[in-house]
């Protein structure tokens, strides 16, 4: 999808402890992530399910979506899930499994936190199910610094997948998506706050050029 140069990565944090939610939220915000916190695995799935809905609407009827709902969809995209292991009801492991079993969610990297060193059979199972890594609580800033590679690795995988998918779309859908992106671009350029030292027009142009290349797969350089 469209990747704005200054869009933040969005992390979904899951923990039944209010204090730990506050902590992880602050850690993530300090590291420039957008954060959503929920207090249970089931709420997490609910939230992630909302993304699925938006994605469907967006893809199936591109002409009817306004550019503002496209931007809303972008804001709801989740780039990483960080979850406590030990939670009442759905554990972090259960959540991990559900995410990895879902075709639309399984590319989202999942990190597990736990307040005690998990017995190795549990941690191996988590890794088998696709967890990226474990953080021992209390989570520190140096732990949060380790998240970026997991997000970037998956972003790259996503883009490759999307390139393949885009090539399969029909001509008319393709054209309307392109038009949408252009509209979005104009919208984003006029909505974006100017960052210090950045030439807005220059950045916008680069973005447009870059996006054309990425989402088409075929390079149409302007």
């Amino acid at each position: 999808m469209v990747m704005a140069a200054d869009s933040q990565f969005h992390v979904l944090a899951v923990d039944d402890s209010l204090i730990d939610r506050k902590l992880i939220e602050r850690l993530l915000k300090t590291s420039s992530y957008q954060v959503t916190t929920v207090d249970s695995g089931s709420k997490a799935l609910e939230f992630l399910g909302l993304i699925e809905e938006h994605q469907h609407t967006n893809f199936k009827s591109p002409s009817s979506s306004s550019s503002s709902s496209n931007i809303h969809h972008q804001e709801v995209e989740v780039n990483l899930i960080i979850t406590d292991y030990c939670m009442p009801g759905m554990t972090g492991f259960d959540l991990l499994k559900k995410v990895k079993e879902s075709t639309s969610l399984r590319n989202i990297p999942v990190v597990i936190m736990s307040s005690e060193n998990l017995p190795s059979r549990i941690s191996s199972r988590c890794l088998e199910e696709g967890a990226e890594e474990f953080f021992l609580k209390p989570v520190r800033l140096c732990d949060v610094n380790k998240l970026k590679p997991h997000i970037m690795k998956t972003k790259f995988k996503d883009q490759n997948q999307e390139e393949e998918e885009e090539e399969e779309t029909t001509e008319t859908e393709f054209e309307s998506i392109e038009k949408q992106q252009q509209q979005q671009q104009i919208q984003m350029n006029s909505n974006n706050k100017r960052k210090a030292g950045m030439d807005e027009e220059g950045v916008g142009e680069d973005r447009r050029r870059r996006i054309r290349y990425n989402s088409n797969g075929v390079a149409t350089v302007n």
Partner: protein
Amino acid sequence: MLGFSADRLRADMNRLLALLFHQGVLDEQFLQLQQLQDESSPNFVLEVVNIYFQESERLLKSLRALLIERELTDYKKMGNHLNQLMGSSSSIGANRVRNVCIAFRANSEQSNRAGCLRALEVLEHEYCYLKSKLHELFQIEQQRVLGAGVRYPMQQN
């Protein structure tokens, strides 16, 4: 004159913190909390600690209620409460409270009622001490902030 007391207040705060670290009441996680406080979140430590106080008092009450129940002491529930208290204590750097929870939990796992009662006494004591020291810390901090606030308009003139 104001500058002097601001320095003195900071010194008081540092001295109190050093004492609490030395006693093992707080550990470096508390420093992490302070580091996360900034202009965008100026009351972060206070907010988190207040939540901790509320939660801890609730859990301590529940623990006492569970232990008063002689017939069918729910040690499992006790363990759950203790895990919660351990987790939150660890998250704010309340080192001694956390350690007492660990000992308490061991007693509850063995259904050792006498041991649990003793541990609860110690836990309540440690919690009270922590709470009063943190209040002291926040009071000093508040005075320092107020003092600094009065200074700024003078500096502009």
